């Protein structure tokens, strides 16, 4: 069960491991048979998944239409470049704003819903955005997508960094991922973080204790939509275009799948593991067989059946088992000495 206590270090031990892997990736990617661009997509989806898990794992609200806010961010960034010539950082801020506005509006309709009705409403709204992305051809380019949004240079006054190389762009994305991770880690350990977990455990009781449940649900939904928008904007930079596919039910389902297969319900790091597993499975299985989604789907079904808490849950069980064994040995040792 995903519970946090009020006190937590600013930077935890797992976080240091994560940051070390994140920041050193381009150095050993080639040696491990991976490539820089793969790292970019993985880190973008890690940002997306961490924000999504705030909603799914911590607040217990399943959204099956989050691709919409991701996509809105991607289109928002693209349109900001095409019409406003906004540059990298303002473009990303606008992408985040687009995600915030879209999810904030939807959350107005959702925040007093529970359970199955909440889930189905997120699907309906997600489909509306997907549909608009396809049909508003003048704005979004329809099914072809919004193309030719070239990666910009970041101008720091004294010097410039071009994001055209994957190496430079990877570090820009990784830096944002570090910031988002620190921020979300603080958030879930804050009083607000306690409150959203109270909503997950028992919404009615949380309301009786005096929490403004509607307002908490609205805020979490909007916040995760904003992070999805940011991630969508980044994906636009990576792919130099935005596609309606990122908003489909299929894509929205995949992010839920990634978060859960990693163990979003039991660990802050579940989404990170899940995204990495997904991309490695795609690349490794994809190089063996064209039908990799079939095998990934079967793997996912097996995880849901036998270890629904995902990889993080399995890891937690393993650690607990090792610890018990050690204690058991100590006890047995003591008994022999007697």
């Amino acid at each position: 069960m995903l519970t946090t206590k009020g006190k937590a270090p600013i930077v935890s031990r797992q976080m240091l491991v994560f940051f070390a892997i994140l920041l050193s990736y381009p150095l050993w990617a080639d040696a491990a048979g991976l490539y820089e661009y793969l790292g970019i997509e993985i880190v973008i989806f890690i940002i997306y998944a961490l924000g999504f898990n705030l909603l799914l794992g911590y607040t217990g609200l399943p959204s099956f239409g989050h691709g919409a806010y991701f996509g809105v961010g991607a289109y928002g960034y693209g349109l900001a470049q095409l019409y406003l010539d906004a540059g990298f950082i303002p473009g990303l801020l606008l992408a985040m704003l687009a995600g915030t506005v879209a999810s904030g509006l939807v959350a107005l309709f959702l925040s007093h819903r529970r359970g199955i009705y909440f889930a189905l409403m997120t699907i309906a709204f997600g489909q509306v955005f997907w549909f608009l992305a396809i049909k508003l051809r003048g704005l979004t380019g329809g099914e072809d997508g919004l193309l030719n949004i070239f990666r910009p240079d970041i101008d720091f006054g004294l010097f410039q960094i071009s994001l055209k190389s994957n190496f430079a762009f990877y570090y820009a994305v990784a830096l944002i991922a570090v910031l988002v991770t620190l921020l979300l880690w603080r958030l879930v350990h804050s009083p607000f973080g306690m409150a959203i977990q109270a909503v997950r455990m028992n919404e009615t009781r949380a309301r009786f204790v005096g929490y403004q449940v509607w307002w908490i649900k609205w805020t979490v939904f909007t916040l995760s939509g904003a992070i999805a928008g940011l991630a969508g904007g980044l994906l636009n930079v990576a792919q130099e275009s935005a596609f309606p596919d990122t908003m489909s039910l299929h894509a929205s389902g995949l992010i839920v799948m990634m978060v859960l297969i990693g163990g979003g319900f039991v660990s802050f790091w579940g989404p990170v593991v899940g995204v990495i597993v997904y991309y490695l499975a795609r690349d490794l299985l994809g190089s063996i067989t064209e039908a990799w989604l079939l095998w990934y789907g079967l793997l996912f079904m097996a995880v849901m059946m036998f270890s629904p808490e995902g990889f993080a849950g399995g890891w937690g069980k393993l650690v607990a088992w090792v610890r018990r064994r050690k204690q058991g040995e100590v006890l047995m040792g003591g008994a022999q000495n007697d």
Partner: protein
Amino acid sequence: MSAIQPVLNESLGMEFVTNLLPHLINGLALGLLFALIALGFTLIVSVMEVINLAHGSLFALGAYLAMVIIDPSLQNAGPIGLWYLGLPHLLRYAIALIVAPALVAVVGFGLELCLRRTYGKKKEYGLLLTFGAALVLEEAIRLTWGPVEQFLSVPKEISGAFIANGLIYSTYRIYAAAFGIFAIVLVWLFLTKTPYGAIIKAGAHDSEMVRALGINLPRLQLLVFGLGAALAAIAGIILTPIWGLRPHVGVDAVIPAFLIIVLGGIGSFWGAVLGGLLVGMGVAITGAYASAWSLLSMYLLLILVLTFRARGLFGKKTALEA
């Protein structure tokens, strides 16, 4: 002047209605079949509390299996194969209409057996298991029958078109609407007039109590899932000649089904039927005036209804919200 005016209005109104009539029939056919998909879906949700995201894949699987049963490649399979191919097209179609849903029901049984491990845990696990199953089924379909569009051949008795009052009507759409009514009535009779139906309804209301009364709940769940899967497959066989047969056609079916059960109220039979008709008519009528936007109408309809009636048209407060 004053005497002529109403007559003129009336005749204009009549013309308006007759021009719209083919669209209304399309809407009726679409709505009834949507209702059929939604009925299977709502049965599964109410008895097992699982949103079956694989429902669309079962829909597609039913259609593909029917395609194979109607036109199998048996040219080299000896006398029995040739004898089968020599049967009238209509007879093979009728066989497909029975055998394909039965096969899909068996797939549904398998899925329910997998789902069993998630009962009593978080609802999301069951839902995600069916999402995984949807991926698997869709990929399996793509591997078996290829990604290109296929055709489910329809016997000539129920295809073609006829002209009445200067308007063209498609025979198949009328057949589809009639079949939809027939199937819905059959499901209604099964649920209300047979002891099995009573047990299913009781199971949807309070499955613990049903078990306490000594009814074999696991077997009931298995049967309900199979029935839901078979209904999806039947709808698939009837709808895909209109829509075309692609591996991801299921998504086009499962989304309206979601919307319809939320619109009508989860667990409500007449809610699903009315919701299906509303969505079907909405799509068809907007399709007559602004075809590009026809699908948007159903999302707007849903958002409109739910803003005013939180549990849909006929929904009651259930355990599903906890």
